[in-house]
């Protein structure tokens, strides 16, 4: 599938798009979106593999089954600032390079465990930086902390954080999730202000 077809299919799976109000019922949206970011089919495959590592197929559907990687692209195209889109594209290349550098393989050649370890290591570095920034923010007069030279570039971390955020966003707002896992009621018809609840005992 080329990217155009992919986006077109995406429009099809987003049921209800035809019901959208006039202000967002722009049938050329996908084409406009195609102009905002420019990625190759290979890189799109990479996003799919990262999304699938975040939300894998288990006994229940995974990211690729639910086309979450296409949702990531859709959101990136439409709902992010230009500088974030640019950082994403650059970061995606850094990500591919880093896979070669650290594991001497492309991401799709890695086994699941290694893929997970790779992603978790990126998260770990990002969190450590956030904590450090928080700490220096607490000290008012402290000189701005120079970020330690980590393994991963800021763009790589931006790429990963957008893929993760939008994969989870797409997953938890998917029809599958909202009809099978945490059921969304369009018409609850009730409000019970006092509903008994039994907390599980901590193990």
């Amino acid at each position: 599938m080329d990217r155009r077809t992919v986006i077109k299919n995406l429009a099809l799976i987003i049921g209800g798009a035809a019901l959208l109000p006039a202000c967002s019922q722009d049938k050329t949206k996908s084409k406009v979106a195609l102009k905002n970011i420019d990625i190759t089919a290979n890189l799109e495959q990479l996003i799919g593999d990262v999304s699938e590592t975040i939300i894998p197929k288990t006994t229940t559907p995974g990211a690729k089954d639910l086309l979450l990687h296409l949702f990531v692209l859709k959101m990136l195209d439409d709902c992010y600032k230009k500088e974030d889109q640019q950082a994403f594209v650059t970061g995606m290349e850094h990500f591919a390079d880093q896979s070669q550098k650290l594991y001497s393989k492309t991401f799709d050649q890695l086994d699941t465990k290694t893929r997970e370890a790779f992603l978790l290591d990126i998260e770990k570095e990002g969190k450590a930086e956030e904590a450090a920034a928080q700490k220096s923010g607490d000290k008012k007069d402290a000189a701005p902390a120079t970020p330690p030279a980590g393994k991963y570039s800021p763009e790589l971390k931006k790429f990963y954080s957008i893929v993760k955020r939008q994969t989870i966003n797409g997953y938890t707002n998917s029809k599958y999730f909202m009809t099978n896992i945490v059921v969304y009621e369009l018409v609850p018809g009730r409000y019970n202000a006092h509903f008994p609840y039994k907390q599980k005992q901590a193990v």
Partner: protein
Amino acid sequence: MANLNIDSVKERTFDAIVIGSGMSGGWAAKEFTDKGLKTLILERGRDVKHIKDYPTTNMYPWEFEHRGELPMAVQEANPIVNRCYAFGESAAHFFVKDAEHPYIQDKPFDWIRGYQVGGKSLLWARQTQRWSDFDFEGPARDGFAVDWPIRYKDIAPWYSYVEKFAGISGNRDGIAELPDGEFLPAFPLNTVEEYFRDHVKSNYKNRYVISARCAHLSTPNQIHLDQGRVQCQRRTICERGCPFGGYFSANATTIPWALKSGHATLRPFSVVESIIYDEKLGKATGVRVIDTNTKEAIEYYAKVIFVNAAALNTNLILLNSKSHRFPNGLGNDSGVLGKYVAFHNYSAHIGAEYDGAKEWTTDGRNPAGGGYIPRFRNVYKQETDFLRGYASGFGAYRYPQRSWDGVGSSLKDNLANKELGPWHVGSHMMGETIPKESNFVSLDDKQKDAWGVPLLKMNIDYDDNDEKMKKDYVEQLTEMFTSAGFTNIKASTDRRAPGLDIHEMGGARMGNDPKTSILNKWNQVHSVKNVFVTDGASMTSTSCQNPSLTYMAFTARAADYAMSEMKKGNI
């Protein structure tokens, strides 16, 4: 609608013209048509028909292209309206976009507008508390603005009248500063909201936590079924428009009611450029309308004109209605038109956790939003270094804590977690602000919009009183939360521009003295007896209660008065 392409004066003549089809205009139309008056309802925006024109109302979250979020291009093109909490993918079509209708901010003002039949009544937060004499006597007691020309007893029967028809849910709480009304059953407080209610009751004098009163049909009466509305289904996606008519909107209620009478003509796409004043007759004879599609100017005539264009647009129309007799705007002998605009201060919030009531949660959703804390500051006497006070929202919520940490099947498990976290509690401030001459709107003398109407200029700001009140809200609520045993208390204040509260009021205030006010005690222009203003523009002061219910009551009362004056031949 061929019958609108008419050119004879007779066919453009009505008994009553209502400018605006929203919260208050819908009421004027209903009252007039109930009594058989031939009524023209003018709406500057498009028509929005109940149910039919709610395109997103039955959409599931996954059916929204961006799952509720607006594209960045839309957000960046609309910095003002994008600050409104309800401006999202599900309701953006009911909001005015920034570029469509420009205005001039001499001082920052977030003007949030809904230009369509029903106006902002589709989008409001549906909170409905009566005002009391602690509000109507406020300016006289505390020495600001001018004395209200009415007291609670004048408006109380009209509150009852509109409440019965609109459908207001609430408890009879017996609180003098928040009078009881004609209520449908209240939406109950949940376990932690009740806990806080009881704590406040036993530890504080004159402080109460009650079920928020709201315009929802908790249990409809026959009059609501007669309107074609049914019980509120507790969906809490009201800003999309409600196919059940579960909450009060002009679209579900007053407008179809007026149209059903056969006496109303609804004309959308009709912006009122000005009200026509006849020097010889000494009264208004009609309105000059610009068709927003064709840009054609058309005049309509009537015996009585109700201006319900929403507070600031009502000011604009009056200011732009210039004549030899009224060179500074219709009825503006006093020079106060456009001045003494005020709003509500919503710029403080507080959140915390409660480590208790673990064996309870809620089921379904609460359209009332939770609890309401009526104003407790400076009610019976002046007790702080600022004037007036604030009401507070209060709600308690519990939800599963779904960690986004990790990847893979463990993340999937985390996201599917149904185990509830602790209770969270939150409150927001709703502060009264003091109307001042220096807070005003005026017309730009050069720039005009696409229909030739001058642009409105905003000069509205907070003052020291607002800052002190905000500080007090944070202190008082922090203390109340602390003494209730809430933990992890976090107060936050922001620097939002006025307007985002969407409670702008005043500019054509009521008063006893024509030298210092525009309207008399009947919402009637002192010097133009057949023009009435019954929307937010008419308010002398702002109280801290949500104002819409009061606009409705003033409108029904003024319409009744106008019709009795017409019968007597006085107008």
